[in-house]
């Protein structure tokens, strides 16, 4: 195996490891650190792929990832949890081992899903497409298992990381203008959610989503 493929595989496995760690992490603060690490791995992956394939626009993408997902968003999230005074919040997750096992099943599923596509892709990174889909699915699983607002949003952001990773591994990244647009959406989304968290807490006195069960299919 060539050095480039080894490095890319290393990044892919780190992505997967962080995705699992997020699934099992109870503390909100550690969750944000994990998210920042995931961004760092993503940026490093873009750099490595850009270096070995000569797609230099990936450097730019790596730079924006670094700026936004490793610095800006974690800072905003840290600021938010400090202001909301939920820095030390610990979520009561039921049955982490079962969730993790479900995660492993998802990884196998993702790999089978990616198999026909990665055979068509002509990139050196195509092997990692399955991991990318797995990261997306694991983030989705995380959103389902969480009952608090901030972890759900981190799950959403992790899902977006997985999609970015998928774009890098399947096609060496989307066209620049689209990537910038997606990043813009992410920034705006996080800002709006920042405002929204305060509204949620004002209305419910907590960021626990279990209070949000009033709207049901048919009103009583």
């Amino acid at each position: 195996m060539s050095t480039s493929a080894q490095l890319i595989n290393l990044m892919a496995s780190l992505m997967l490891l962080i995705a699992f760690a997020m699934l099992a992490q109870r503390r909100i603060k550690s969750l944000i650190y994990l998210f920042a690490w995931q961004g760092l791995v993503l940026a490093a992956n873009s750099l490595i792929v850009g270096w070995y394939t000569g797609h230099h626009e990936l450097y730019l993408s790596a730079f924006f990832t670094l700026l936004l997902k490793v610095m800006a968003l974690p800072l905003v999230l840290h600021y938010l949890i400090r202001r909301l005074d939920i820095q030390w919040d610990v979520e009561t997750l039921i049955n982490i081992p079962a969730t993790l096992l479900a995660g492993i099943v998802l990884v196998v599923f993702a790999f089978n899903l990616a198999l026909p596509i990665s055979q068509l892709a002509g990139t050196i990174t195509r092997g990692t497409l399955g991991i990318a889909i797995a990261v997306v699915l694991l983030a989705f699983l995380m959103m389902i298992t969480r009952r608090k607002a901030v972890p759900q949003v981190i799950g959403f952001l992790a899902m977006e990381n997985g999609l970015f990773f998928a774009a890098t591994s399947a096609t060496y990244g989307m066209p620049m203008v689209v990537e910038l647009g997606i990043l813009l959406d992410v920034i705006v989304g996080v800002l709006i959610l920042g405002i929204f968290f305060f509204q949620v807490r004002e209305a419910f006195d907590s960021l626990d989503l279990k209070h949000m069960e009033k709207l049901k299919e048919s009103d009583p």
Partner: protein
Amino acid sequence: MTLAHLISFLSQLTQTLLVVLIAPLMLGWVAQCRAWLQNRSGPGLLQPYRVLFKLLHKDALLAHNASPLFRSAPYIQFGCMVLAASVVPIIETNLLFAPAADVIALVGVFALARVFSSLAAMDVGTAFGSLGARREMLVASLSEPALLMVLFTPLLIVQSSSLNTIVDTLAHREFQLHPSLAFAAVAFVMVLLAENARIPIDNPSTHLELTMIHEAMILEYSGRHLALIEWAHAIKFTTYCAIGIALFVPWGIAQAGVWQVLPGAVFALLVKLGVAGAGLALLESVCAKLRIFRAPEFMGMAFMLAALGMLTRLLLGA
């Protein structure tokens, strides 16, 4: 008997004796490191030897209702551990005993020792004995699948279940990055802690009835029986470290028949064991002991990591 046979017999003997003899030292080293980390002076590196010496000179007391099983269990455990220590390529590959067991059989040898220790613990019928045995079985039922899962990753990479082949292939070829092996290594450390009754699953230095597992099982033993059990425990710990070294950092283990490098291999082994012991001491100092009900979660994590390692190997070929 030819010279080759003699050399291979001698090196086998060297390794087995070496491991059996330095095993208490390993425990002493970990205890000493912990003492240093906690700003204590510690009992000294040779303390486990002194304990063994003391116990061997004491009379063994047996309960009235103790069966022959109770009496034979320490010998069986000791024998199992010595066998395990002889099979693993610790200083040299292609040992005389190596064909006796591959990694999976090795797990079986450990399981055999555990079965006897648990049976013996329940034999006398004291409350603590059966409590310890049940807890031991709880941990074992979770750590054994995790251990097997850990072993599968190197097996898949090398395509063989013989420890010799694994070490030969991994140690004596061009260096490659294997993220899957890294996952497996982390999982292995977690399994090692659980199987050897270390923090965060068990605390070896306490007799607190609410938390103890291993100590609860051997409460009824005394004298030479206890000495054998403690010694077997030390050998098990050292052998586990050696398995970890063989699987994940095999550089320095001598190739079969090249007896000139044996001193180097012994030196490398001692350095690696020293580093491993210090690392474990550090880990034990920064971790808190988990409640027994959290143990399944800990082992689940180990299993998950090991499975992840295997998956990355299968999916990425890494």
